């Protein structure tokens, strides 16, 4: 089975802290994504990566950065956490060259910034 694993299910951080959300996939997928999920807004794309060390901004990249040093791992970084970044964060992966394939998701990290 394809597995996408996010390092934490729940996280509580203080305003101004640097926060790392980690995501690992075991299917050798080229594409990896970070989405943010908020009630009524669905999922919105923060960043994606189509290869090691490659990254592209999604729809809402402000306040976030990403790192992809290894193919299987994609990290989301909140440089200075703010309360408006309290949300559910979902990581996903998919193969690159099959454009109609499904994306496989992690179980999400619910981040609370206090």
């Amino acid at each position, binding site marked *: 089975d394809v597995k996408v694993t996010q390092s934490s299910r729940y996280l509580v951080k203080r305003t101004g802290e640097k926060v790392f959300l980690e995501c690992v996939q075991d299917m050798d997928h080229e*594409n990896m*994504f970070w*989405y943010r999920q908020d009630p*009524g*807004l*669905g*999922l*919105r*794309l923060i960043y*994606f990566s*189509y290869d090691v060390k490659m990254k*592209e901004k*999604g729809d809402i990249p402000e306040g976030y950065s990403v790192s992809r040093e290894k193919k299987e791992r994609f990290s989301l970084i909140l440089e200075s956490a703010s309360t408006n970044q309290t949300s*559910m964060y*979902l990581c*996903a992966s*998919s*193969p*690159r060259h099959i*454009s*109609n*394939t*499904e*994306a496989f*998701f992690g*179980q*999400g990290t619910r981040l609370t910034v206090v």
Partner: protein
Amino acid sequence: AQTVTQSQPEMSVQEAETVTLSCTYDTSENNYYLFWYKQPPSRQMILVIRQEAYKQQNATENRFSVNFQKAAKSFSLKISDSQLGDTAMYFCAFMKHEGGNMLTFGGGTRLMVKP
């Protein structure tokens, strides 16, 4: 840019009955894919069904089927013989044919199946 709209924030259905979830989208693309994803309380997103825009035939997966109206840019999900395990958030999503597999999601519909 693409937008996806789900106009029903919440719905409920009795067990064994049929329910239809609505989704409309806006795009200038001609080739694309549409998806319905399910997110149960466990939070694990699961693909329910997928439709390729160039295919006229509506996709079906067991109790799940879609009504794809390309000209109207409508993509509704019908769940037949609803089961308690169908209780979940349902998201409609759009993907361009050559778009790096990025998904654009609607706001979601929370479905409650009642015994």
